[in-house]
């Protein structure tokens, strides 16, 4: 696979592992493009992403570039070919997430189309980053200067706003969806929606027809007996008391540790990478406070993992966005848009 920066193009062998790929990406920063040899899986993956974006906005493939890469090393069970008893061996693999970029903005097309379809005036209110910053400022107790971490499904965005109102931001690849994929492959589920449930919801073990053991070891009891088929299984506890049994025999402890490890691997590495790019001298200690936004901030572990890591290593305080004091962190951009519409003159 080839990673090109402003001046040089480096060739990296995928076998050398995720760390080597990441250090090369850091070395060439800013990344201008990345591509793989055709016929290899990485080549296929990168050109498929580029082609998808090219198809959406009618741009030639050459003008679409990979602007960020994130690699994670993981272990995947692979079936031994020719094995008589269905043996599996554990193989080292590299998970890759890429962010593609094009000069042309898709937004103008969307605005034109929305205007035509809905007959309601539609305007572009501002960049997502600024809106998210505005929204994050409505969290009680948050003041300038601040840093936001916007962790969604596909990307991690970090933005800083200093006391004078200057904004610096960065978009990096690798977030929620990559986590789902890694959980799926590490547990060999071959079921993306189940992996998504494992990522989001807590797990438990059904110990008898009347009680389950939760992740933290505490017991939960039921008045009505549970379904006999759940007995002895590890289940995922969804919101409305629904229990989804795992099809495979994965011990509860293993499930929890894999889920946590994956979250740490992706989010800690990526958050540090993102914050280093927006802070002066790459010094994270200069940050005062960080507000976490978007879907991944609602996860049961991710905010805790990030907050603990940043506090111990850099002394940075991290909190989940509490938009307008009552809404969850997914509302930051919407709130920011409304605010900026109402107070057009006030610059952030």
């Amino acid at each position: 696979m080839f990673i090109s920066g402003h001046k040089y193009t480096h060739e990296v062998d995928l076998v050398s592992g995720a760390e080597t790929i990441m250090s090369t990406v850091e070395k060439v920063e800013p990344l201008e493009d990345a591509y793989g040899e055709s016929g290899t899986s990485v080549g296929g993956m990168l050109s498929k992403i580029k082609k998808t974006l090219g198809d959406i906005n009618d741009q030639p493939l050459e003008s679409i570039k990979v602007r960020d890469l994130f690699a994670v090393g993981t272990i995947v069970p692979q079936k031994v070919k020719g094995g008589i008893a269905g043996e599996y061996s554990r193989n080292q693999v590299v998970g890759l997430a890429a962010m593609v970029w094009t000069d042309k903005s898709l937004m103008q097309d969307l605005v034109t189309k929305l205007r035509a379809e809905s007959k309601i005036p539609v305007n572009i209110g501002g960049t997502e980053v600024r809106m998210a910053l505005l929204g994050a400022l409505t969290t009680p107790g948050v003041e300038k200067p601040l840093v936001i971490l916007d962790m969604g499904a596909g990307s991690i965005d970090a933005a800083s706003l200093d006391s004078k109102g200057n904004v610096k931001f960065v978009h990096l690849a690798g977030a929620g969806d990559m986590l789902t994929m890694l959980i799926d492959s590490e547990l060999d589920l071959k079921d993306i929606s189940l992996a998504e449930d494992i990522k989001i919801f807590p797990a438990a073990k059904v110990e008898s027809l009347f009680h389950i053991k939760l992740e933290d070891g505490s017991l939960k009891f039921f008045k009505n007996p549970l379904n006999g088929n759940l007995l002895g299984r590890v289940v995922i506890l969804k919101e409305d008391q629904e229990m989804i049994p795992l099809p495979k025999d994965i011990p509860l402890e293993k499930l929890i540790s894999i889920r946590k490890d994956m979250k740490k691997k992706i989010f800690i590495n990526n958050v540090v990478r993102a914050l280093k790019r927006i802070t002066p001298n790459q010094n994270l200690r200069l940050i005062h406070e960080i507000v976490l936004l978007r879907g991944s901030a609602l996860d049961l572990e991710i905010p805790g993992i990030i907050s603990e890591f940043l506090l111990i290593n850099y002394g940075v305080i991290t909190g989940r966005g509490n938009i307008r004091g009552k809404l969850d962190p997914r509302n930051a951009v919407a709130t920011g848009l409304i605010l900026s519409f109402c107070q057009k003159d006030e610059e952030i």
Partner: protein
Amino acid sequence: MSIVSYEPPGFVGVVIYVEKRSENMMQAREVIYGLEEEGLPHTIISDGFHDDNTNGLAQQAANKSVFDVGICCSDNAIVLHQGNLPKENPVIQISKNQANLNKARLLGINAARLIKRMPFEEI
């Protein structure tokens, strides 16, 4: 045909009520094989009970067992019951027209797994 039980003397394992007919006995034997595969002791009771309701008999059996788990092979059905469950809501119930020796053995395996708190085999 005689059914040999392997439990230590005085120990009441999984209690199995069997209505005395050769078909029931054969199924009960498969249930016991299932229990044995999983290493659980059992106790057979084949007379001295009066109830037309298989579920009720299975629950009575469960109440006698130290494991609180009982099985009844009657003319109508094979039922696996746990003492603290509602009478009409047994763990597993196989009606007679669906029952075969293989299912009877799986029911025995699942009775043992209920006690061992392991996932059930699919019947």
